[in-house]
């Protein structure tokens, strides 16, 4: 098609009326001129006109030929039918509202979930995201597929791996930031110099730190870059902040630049970017070899142009192998037993891995709900097209082609879908606001706020979805009447239209199908609900009532050595105990079940790991004496830490029951020695002084207390065991209210050191339940979807049955006239409905058995085939469905035979 023609056609579609009137006027002009000429030749006006018309050919025919030449007949026809459809729908308000709400709800839900998926899985907004990878350690045999990395690896790769343009070491770290006397605890990033180059970002203001910042105590190492949001919130985007100073954990730092918001969003909303300070003189070659796998930081790399990930991986494998040759014996053993491998993934893949499954399940569920909604509407449309059968039959016999009638159905459905998608956008908009406000942090901690209206992708999705819905419905409703049926109807000479048998079976099939989908969704939500109830009631293994916690972080400047730290802890403990009604105080490096603890692998003398098992691994928690007593964790053997442990130069250890039973099956754990780090002399090894009961240390929904891989047992060490431990938790037992006692705790801490802010505070019970937030959010969404599905399919059953009954009024009247009792009639229709429901439930249960297996990783202490969930859902759905079929069936019994027969 030529460009000119396209322009003309667009003009003809848009300005159809003007084009029509132009054509009329042109033809009229032609005829007038011809008539004038004829009159000049001496004809009478009447004759002149007749001759002109004759010579011209049929005026209407010419117009039709011209319209054909316009080539826009199809389009204008469709537009006309679309408008007609809209008009019909607007006239039929009840029907239209019901349908657009149903479909709108479904489309809206789909849009929300899609936009979440899309925002998570869309490539990050830094240039060439596919070249930026995280390089991480994997220890599959230890049950750890993904760990971080560490500085010796960074140094090694920086020197030897030329596959990467830049490498950067990154650590998330919260600090006490003090600006103009006010101190807050904020999250930030410590990163090596090439960090900004690697992500290819540019400063919003000022500059980024450079190469020199890596050297500890250099001038550049005291510089800091703040994030755009911190700049906005704290400084109101004041450009004069460059050169301002603030304290980061009591180190005086100068602000030199502002980093764009996009960068922070990939790093847990970091408020600042601080140079990674590294002291080459402090770490010996040997220390680097020893700490290579003490994973504490994340390592990122930007691949050089043209270098594939496979090539880079091969190079890293060679470097790792070189390390293995010179590694200490202990490390070799660890690497062998853990099947260590260095792996790479892009940020997108990481997101995908973390959140993919639950979101795909949700998207699947919400699509099911849409399907149920569509089936409802399709059923309604089929019913409606029946009532319009006389009209269609009439038009068909007057010469309307079957194609045109079908196209008209299709356009009406597209109009319906267009209205629904408008409602859907509204619902998605409102829904995303609600999600942003209440659910986002639990469901998607790494996602930004959802904005439905700002992404082109979302609109493409909505359009595609509503087009699909419209076509789906259009096909249903245009197949619901065929030429044959129209003819049959005409032959019946205007008799009331009744549904054909195949059509009735088809519609019953639809009802059963939607009920089956509903069962699948509801069984899924019931399983999740059951898991959640189990998890929230599960026994953590320690007391949480009347226990509070808060945390402190000591800075290096003032508490740089063990003595000062120990002294601070002692005075803190003493001071807190003076608060009225405080029963006891404990300090620890972590709170079991709430904070995650570091996993250490240790070789235990006398224990030989089985071939496929890694080295013994422990969750290590540092605690003071009194910790076990305060939390009500009982001793099975031995004793708590005491003063004698602090005075010896060897440290003491307490194991949990799992560890003791596994590694000391003869019950001789207490009194045995374990080497820690480089302790090889027996007098320097650590002594096991006690064994305590197991606790659920991975959260309320953690693995059960049995020993399994991935659920490492606990090892407790004394909090002063040769470690400085700047960050620790305070746990307090008191009958007082938390809100009431907390200000006093704060005051007591401030008296010791006013520069130390408290963070992560609350009742143990609340914090423990917070660990279930993501589970709760996922469960709620699934339940909402399940209930939506139930409502929709109940409406569906009700609708189909009432329609059937309305079609058979005549028959019912006849039956009753010749002696059928209301009971018989009720039985007839109830039985019909019950058959559909029964088939639907049976199909649904079969479907649910397959589907619930996919939920396995979200379930807690129940099997995917939990009898309770299946039976409850089956009973629940059949009760509701029975009500839905009873109501129309009962109304059938109220039909008066005389009235029914007379209406014919």
């Amino acid at each position, binding site marked *: 098609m030529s460009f000119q023609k396209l322009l003309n056609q667009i003009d003809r579609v848009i300005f159809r009326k003007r084009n029509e009137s132009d054509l009329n006027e042109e033809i009229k002009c*032609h005829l007038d001129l011809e008539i004038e000429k004829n009159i000049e030749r001496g004809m009478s006006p009447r004759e002149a006109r007749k001759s002109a018309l004759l010579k011209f050919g049929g005026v209407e025919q010419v117009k039709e030929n011209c319209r054909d*030449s316009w080539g826009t007949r199809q389009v204008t026809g469709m537009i006309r039918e679309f408008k007609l459809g809209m008009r019909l729908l607007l006239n039929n308000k009840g029907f239209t509202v019901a349908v657009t709400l149903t479909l709108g709800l479904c489309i809206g839900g789909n849009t929300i979930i899609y936009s979440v998926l899309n925002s998570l899985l869309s490539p990050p907004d830094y240039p060439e995201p596919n070249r930026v990878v995280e390089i991480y350690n994997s220890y599959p045999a230890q049950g750890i597929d993904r760990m971080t990395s560490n500085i010796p690896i960074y140094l090694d790769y920086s020197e030897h791996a030329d596959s990467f343009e830049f490498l950067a070491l990154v650590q998330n770290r919260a600090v006490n930031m003090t600006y103009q006397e006010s101190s807050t605890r904020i999250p930030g990033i410590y990163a090596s110099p090439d960090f900004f180059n690697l992500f290819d970002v540019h400063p919003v203001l000022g500059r980024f730190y450079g190469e020199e910042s890596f050297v500890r105590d250099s001038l550049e190492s005291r510089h800091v870059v703040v994030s755009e949001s911190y700049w906005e919130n704290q400084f109101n985007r004041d450009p004069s902040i460059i050169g301002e100073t603030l304290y980061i954990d009591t180190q005086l730092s100068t602000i030199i630049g502002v980093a764009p918001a996009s960068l922070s969003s990939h790093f847990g909303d970091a408020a600042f970017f601080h140079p990674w300070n590294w002291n080459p003189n402090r770490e010996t070659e040997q220390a680097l070899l020893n700490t290579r796998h003490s994973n504490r930081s994340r390592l990122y790399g930007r691949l050089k142009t043209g270098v594939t990930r496979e090539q880079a991986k091969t190079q890293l494998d060679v470097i790792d192998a070189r390390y293995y040759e010179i590694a200490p014996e202990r490390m070799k053993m660890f690497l062998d037993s853990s099947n260590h491998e260095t792996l790479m993934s892009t940020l997108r893949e990481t997101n995908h891995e973390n959140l993919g499954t639950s979101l795909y399940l949700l998207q699947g569920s919400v699509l099911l709900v849409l399907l149920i909604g569509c089936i409802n509407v399709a059923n309604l449309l089929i019913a409606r097209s029946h009532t319009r059968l006389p009209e269609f039959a009439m038009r068909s016999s007057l010469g309307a082609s079957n194609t045109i009638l079908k196209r008209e159905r299709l356009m009406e459905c597209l109009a319906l879908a267009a209205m629904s998608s408008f409602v859907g956008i509204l619902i998605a908009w409102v829904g995303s606001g609600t999600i942003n406000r209440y659910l986002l942090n639990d469901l998607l901690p790494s996602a930004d706020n959802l904005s439905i209206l700002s992404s082109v992708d979302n609109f493409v999705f909505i359009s595609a979805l509503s087009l699909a819905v419209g076509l789906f419905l259009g096909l249903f409703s245009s197949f619901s009447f065929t030429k044959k049926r129209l003819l049959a109807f005409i032959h019946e000479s205007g008799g009331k239209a009744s549904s054909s048998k195949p059509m009735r079976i088809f519609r019953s099939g639809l009802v059963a199908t939607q009920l089956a989908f509903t069962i699948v969704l509801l069984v899924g939500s019931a399983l999740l609900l059951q898991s959640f109830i189990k998890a929230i009631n599960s026994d953590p293994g320690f007391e949480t009532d009347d226990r509070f916690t808060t945390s402190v972080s000591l800075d290096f400047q003032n508490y740089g050595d063990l003595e000062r730290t120990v002294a601070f802890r002692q005075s803190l403990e003493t001071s807190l105990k003076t608060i009225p009604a405080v029963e006891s105080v404990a300090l620890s490096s972590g709170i079991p079940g709430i904070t995650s603890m570091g996993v250490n692998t240790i070789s235990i003398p006398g224990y030989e790991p089985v071939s496929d098992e890694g080295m013994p691994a422990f969750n290590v928690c540092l605690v003071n004496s009194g910790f076990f007593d305060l939390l009500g964790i009982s001793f099975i053997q031995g004793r708590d830490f005491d003063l004698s442990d602090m005075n010896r130069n060897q440290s003491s250890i307490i194991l949990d029951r799992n560890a003791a039973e596994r590694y000391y099956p003869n019950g001789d754990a207490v009194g045995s020695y374990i080497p820690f780090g480089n302790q090889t002399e027996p007098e320097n090894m650590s002594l096991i002084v006690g064994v305590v009961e197991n606790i659920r240390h991975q959260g309320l929904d953690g693995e059960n207390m049995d020993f399994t891989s991935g659920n490492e047992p606990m090892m407790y060490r004394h909090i002063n065991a040769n470690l400085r431990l700047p960050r620790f938790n305070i746990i307090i037992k008191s009958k007082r209210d938390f809100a009431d006692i907390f200000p006093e705790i704060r005051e007591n801490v401030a008296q010791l050191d006013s520069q130390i802010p408290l963070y992560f505070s609350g009742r143990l019970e609340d914090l423990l339940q917070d660990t279930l937030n993501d589970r709760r959010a996922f469960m709620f969404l699934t339940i909402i979807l399940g209930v939506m599905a139930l409502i929709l399919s109940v409406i569906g059953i009700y609708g189909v049955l009432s329609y059937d009954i309305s079609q058979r009024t005549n028959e019912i009247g006849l039956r009753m006239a010749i002696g059928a009792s209301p009971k018989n009639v009720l039985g007839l229709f109830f039985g019909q409905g019950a058959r559909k429901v029964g088939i639907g439930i049976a199909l649904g249960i079969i479907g649910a058995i397959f589907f619930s297996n996919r939920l396995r990783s979200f379930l807690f202490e129940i099997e995917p085939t939990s009898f309770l969930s299946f039976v409850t859902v089956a009973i629940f759905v059949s009760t509701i469905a029975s009500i839905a079929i009873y109501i129309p069936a009962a109304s059938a019994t109220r039909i008066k035979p005389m009235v029914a027969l007379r209406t014919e």
Partner: protein
Amino acid sequence: MSKKKNSLLQGAVELLILRALRDEDRHGWGIQQRIDQIGSESVTLKQGSLYPALIRLGDQGLIKSEWRITENGRKAKYYILTNKGRKQLDLEIQQWEDFSNTINLIIAEA
């Protein structure tokens, strides 16, 4: 009716219209008069078949149209040959002549 005959006729009508517009811009009736004038009675067409042909020519970009006032003060739609149309006309006349020459030659030889 076979499609071939139809398209041959169509082609002829379009050629005649372009030829009629070569010397001056005309409205529909004027084109008709011009064709009648030069073609005498040998080419008889329903006058109405002119208009679909005009639309097709417009879509090909060979002619354009605008509303003007005739010398008798009547509003009429005038058609104007575009540059592209002029070239196309020359080309088609050339082709037509070549074609009819060939046919004439064959007929003469036979």
